[in-house]
């Protein structure tokens, strides 16, 4: 229905506006409608990383795109917190400063959402409360080992 879509759009837009500057350390982002009618118009993201002009998303860098996408996914989670969220190496394109901000937001969001995340990044591993290590000591066969962070860093280097 029109009212439901309007509510969804406005709440995700508001949360995107709040989360983007926290992930980027500044700047702003918001949603825009491509048409008049709420029921069939398309939705686009407008983003302005700190110090830059508002430009087309396609000119953004690999890391900027990934971080903007995380802001949007987290904004949707604030609207409708699914029981869990699984993230597969979303921090791979990020530099250390952005990985830090991403980790802090992850920790905060985890009060309402369960996060299960795959990462090769030591800074993100340190955000985890529990770590599950997957190994193939027997080649081709996956098994699980419990690891602590120090061990985890070693395991990633095996």
């Amino acid at each position, binding site marked *: 229905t029109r009212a*439901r*879509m309007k*509510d*969804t759009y406005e709440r*995700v837009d508001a949360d995107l506006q709040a989360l983007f500057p926290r992930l980027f350390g500044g700047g702003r982002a918001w949603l825009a409608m*491509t048409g008049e009618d709420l029921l069939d*118009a*398309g*939705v*686009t993201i407008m983003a302005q990383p700190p110090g830059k002009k508002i430009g087309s*998303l*396609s000119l953004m860098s690999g890391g900027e795109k*990934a971080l903007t*996408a995380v802001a*949007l*996914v987290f904004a*949707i*989670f604030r609207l*409708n917190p*699914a*029981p*869990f*969220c*699984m*993230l*597969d*190496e979303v921090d791979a*394109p990020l530099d250390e400063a952005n990985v830090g901000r991403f980790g802090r937001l992850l920790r905060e969001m*985890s*009060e309402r*959402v*369960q*996060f*299960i*995340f*795959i*990462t090769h990044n030591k800074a*993100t*591993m340190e*955000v*985890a*409360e*529990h*770590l*599950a*290590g*997957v*190994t*193939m000591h*027997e080649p*081709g*066969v*996956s*098994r*699980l080992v419990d*690891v602590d962070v120090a061990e*985890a860093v070693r*395991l*990633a280097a*095996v």
Partner: protein
Amino acid sequence: MRLSRIRLAGFKSFVDPVTVHLRSNLVGILGPNGCGKSNVIDAVRWVMGESAASRLRGEAMSDVIFSGSATRKPVGQASVELVFDNAEGRLGGAWASYAEISVRRLVNRDGTSQYFLNGTRCRRRDVTELFLGTGLGPRSYAIVEQGMISRVIDARPEELRAFLEEAA
């Protein structure tokens, strides 16, 4: 409703039964390249009803069954079970009174899948209905596959709209 454990047997590289315990709201999964981390995510999407082999990086649905290694023979069956902690009764309807809810999918080489809810055989539709409205599903915004995070940014306006509608 929290996910408390994932149990895989015969699914992709997890030939021996393995239980992934999710003991908190911040669980990291790590390990070297090719060890089976993304296979765990494929397992979760598969048990929730994913029906396209290409979305599980395979060519046929039987590619989810362990196909052998240098030292092991292929097996004939794959099974994945998700166990949710529903102590707060968040999942409504018939399931509200269950403290734990288990969703399981089984497939053998002839391709027929069987679904189970709390141990009782059910249809795929029952599983998709269970998750309706929770935001979960095989292609939900709640699961971001490897390399796909920027997909939401490259989406066309009408795709982004559909993405939002799913979450509503």
